[in-house]
């Protein structure tokens, strides 16, 4: 199989880069080690579109964050992904912290962040009524927002696929050879050739870079643990609420999610293993101890689940994203060290990387590029009349499979049969929210397994949670 460009890694950066490249007349492959897109760092983070005042002025992080955040509403609109421009608050609890707020404000202004203001306690209370009485003021950044990272990635992947990008999942890249014109990627699905390679391999981007002899950076995986709280908590948090950053880190934030839950976290601990997504008792305790400091009424007992995200932090001194042509091979482009604000920057990263590719490999725009991903059916968001019409058209939308999130059989079939469709339980969950609710798939799990098996022509006991050995059930009892 021969392509013009091979992108390694179908996280948010890889998928949005693929989508950007799919605007042009070139053959693009998106190669992913996992069983689905968005299963690395992308799937588990704060789901925040940052305003852009954190990164030092002049860095790629600062530039791409502000640009990405500005692009996000349009990208989400085209891809039919829920995006909420709720704004963020960095809350100060002392005069000293107010100085930090002032510093962040100035940095934000220099980075080009629009409409920020330093606000006093009274205005803070008005914006965030449940905020702690100990708060003295805050930095208000109205351009910040929230988006679901895997929904954005899946939508970008689907759109890229519909515009001709080739997808390879369960396709680990084990080695790369270069003959000067073509790279040959040795993958789990055989050889894949490409003129240009984009290394968007997340926490494994250093490993991939080393395959062409580039050892200019190392990834130090950094763990962040979160709680996801029940929708019953959502009335307590209106905006993304940060505490003031200290030498110890950014601290524990609280934020609504686009689905109406509340996220609390993350912790920040450097770890050894790149795929160590275990939560720890200590980490979870740190979150539950600190989350109520901003919103004292928040109830961590109303958690639905907890999870760990891994950020791809690099050992580079400049602490910046590593994006650009490798010093070892000009046809090999690194998109590495994409930690926070990676999600916010992703739309801008896609454009930035596409520009690099186009400078090396000039290409015409496709006449028939379609920027839109059709909105998936969302039964739970429909009115009675819309539901009626939908079920009349297709009875499978009348059968509720996930009762906690009101997901129908029709939606699950769409998720499996559509482009870059779900092939396992977590894939269905991320595309439809089936199993994401209060019972955490206790009731619907076996039905989803059945539907997956039926639609994919597999045995029910071959269905996994997320590929590999993550089987749901074993052999027949008798």
């Amino acid at each position, binding site marked *: 199989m021969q392509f013009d460009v091979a992108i390694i890694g179908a996280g948010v950066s890889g998928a949005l880069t693929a989508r950007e490249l799919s605007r042009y007349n070139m053959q693009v492959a998106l190669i992913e080690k996992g069983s689905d897109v968005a299963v690395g760092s992308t799937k588990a983070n704060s789901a925040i579109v940052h305003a852009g005042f954190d990164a030092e002025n002049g860095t790629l992080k600062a530039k791409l964050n502000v640009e990405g955040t500005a692009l996000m509403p349009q990208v989400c609109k085209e891809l039919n992904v829920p995006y909420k421009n709720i704004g963020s608050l960095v809350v100060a609890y002392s005069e000293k912290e107010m100085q930090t707020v002032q510093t962040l404000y100035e940095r934000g202004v220099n980075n080009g962040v629009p409409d920020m203001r330093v606000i006093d306690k009274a205005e803070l209370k008005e914006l965030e009524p449940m905020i702690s009485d100990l708060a003295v003021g805050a930095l208000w950044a109205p351009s910040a927002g929230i988006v679901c990272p895997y929904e954005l990635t899946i939508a970008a992947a689907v759109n890229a696929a519909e515009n001709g990008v080739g997808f390879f999942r369960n396709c680990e890249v084990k080695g790369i050879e270069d003959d000067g014109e073509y790279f040959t990627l040795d993958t789990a699905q055989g050889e894949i050739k490409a003129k240009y390679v984009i290394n968007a391999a997340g926490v494994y981007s250093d490993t991939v870079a080393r395959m062409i002899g580039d050892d200019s950076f190392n990834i130090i995986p950094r763990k962040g643990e979160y*709680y*996801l709280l029940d929708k019953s908590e959502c009335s307590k948090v209106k905006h993304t609420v940060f505490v003031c950053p200290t030498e110890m880190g950014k601290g524990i934030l609280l934020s609504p999610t686009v689905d109406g839950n509340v996220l609390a976290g993350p912790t920040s601990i450097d770890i050894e293993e790149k*795929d160590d*997504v*275990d*939560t*720890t*008792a200590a*980490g*979870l305790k740190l979150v539950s101890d600190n989350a109520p400091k901003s919103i004292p009424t928040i109830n961590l007992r109303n*958690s*639905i*689940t*907890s*999870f760990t995200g891994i950020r791809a932090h690099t050992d580079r001194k400049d602490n910046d994203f590593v994006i650009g042509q490798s010093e070892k091979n000009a046809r090999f482009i690194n998109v590495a060290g994409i930690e926070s604000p990676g999600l916010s920057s992703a739309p801008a990263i896609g454009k930035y990387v596409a520009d690099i590719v186009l400078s090396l490999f000039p290409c015409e725009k496709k006449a028939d590029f379609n920027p839109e991903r059709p909105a998936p059916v969302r039964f739970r968001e429909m009115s*009675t009349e819309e*539901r*009626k019409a939908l*079920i*009349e058209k297709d*009875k*499978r939308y*009348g*059968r*509720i499979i996930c*009762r*906690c999130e*009101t997901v129908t*059989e029709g939606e699950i079939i769409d998720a499996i049969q559509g482009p870059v469709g779900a092939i396992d339980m977590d894939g269905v969950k991320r595309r439809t929210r089936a199993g994401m609710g*209060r*019972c*955490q*798939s*206790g*009731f619907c*799990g*076996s039905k989803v397994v059945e539907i997956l098996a039926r639609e994919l022509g597999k045995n*029910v*006991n071959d269905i*996994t*949670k*997320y*590929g*590999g*050995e*993550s*089987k*749901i*059930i*074993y*052999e*027949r*009892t*008798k």
Partner: protein
Amino acid sequence: MLNYDLAVIGGGPAGMAAALEAKENGVEKIIILERAATLGGILEQCIHAGFGLHYFKEELSGPEYAYRFIEKVKATDIDVKVDTMVLTIEEGNKITATNNVDGLIEISAKAIVLAMGCRERPRGAINIAGSRCSGIMTAGTAQKYVNIDGYMPGHKIVILGSGDIGLIMARRMSLEGAKVQMVCELQPYSNGLTRNIVQCLDDMGIPLKLSCTVVATHGKERLEGVTIADVDEKLCPIPGTERFVECDTLLLSIGLIPENELTRMAGIDLDRVTNGAVVDEYRQTSKEGVFACGNVLQVHDLVDYVTIESKLAGKGAAKYIKGESEKGEYIETQGINGVRYIVPQKINSKTDDDVNLYFRVGSVYKGAKIVVTCGDKVILSKKRPRMCPSEMETVTIKKDVIESIPAGEKLTVRVEE
């Protein structure tokens, strides 16, 4: 719009008993809306014996207990819609439901009985640290895989929580050839019936670890083991007591939560302890004409009590539909001193029958007394050889006693050691 006298949401033992009782009390047009493919509710997967000892005076399996009601429902003109999910309950007892045969169904009913049952607390409710690999599920989910679908959910099993479902599944998995390593229980006492400890664990040679919990799960893809640890009297893991137990499956039996999403949607008052609706002696909720019974009202340990409770709801709904409900003052009930809650939470002073108060205690008591008082007056005092949180207790308050209670007074139930 379909018009009914009574719409029953849920076709498990509670819904069926309520519908049948309403029918016997003269209600004409009744519909049961059931989300599963058959009537029977969770009993369909509870294939073990031990049901019906109180109500039928014989020992039945879950499906057999359900079957007796299913046959009765079939013999009436009660309408049943299976595979049907209720989406909303709106003002004026309007219900929307959906299935893949009729599509969207709109129903208007004079009265509604809520009988949606309960669900199991998932892992997230207790936030066990560790990996999110496969092989971690609730005991009830495993029960469905084994008993209904006929698949093994795992081979080497650790069970967290000694509630009855956990114990039953320990035996069930053993009988099907799995190795059940142990059952861990956070509390210093078991939450299951003694009979189940003996027949499900002792018989199968499965150790019960009291004051012990699972603190971490391990495994990249499939579960490979768990770390367990002993807990102190505050139920916190004791550092240094952690040990690894190999297993490919962790079954959780860590409690049940009434499924009151529809109840909340209908704006009905809920009891913070039971997580079910606040009801009167006929299980009428804070919304007139809406009744609740079974595990959606309070988690029961015996289905026999579900049946008894649901018949009250059915009778109450019939009275309401026929305009025969008594209208007196409400007397509140209150559990104190070891009594965690009482159902019903209020009693109509003009009730037409004796009233049973159902409640649970907060810890294990031996030889303690249950004392019911009204103001300074002791109404009832009964000695109980043994009480524990896992077993529902009941006392009967006579109709004439209720009538004699002055307006504004409370009935208080307490444990006296």
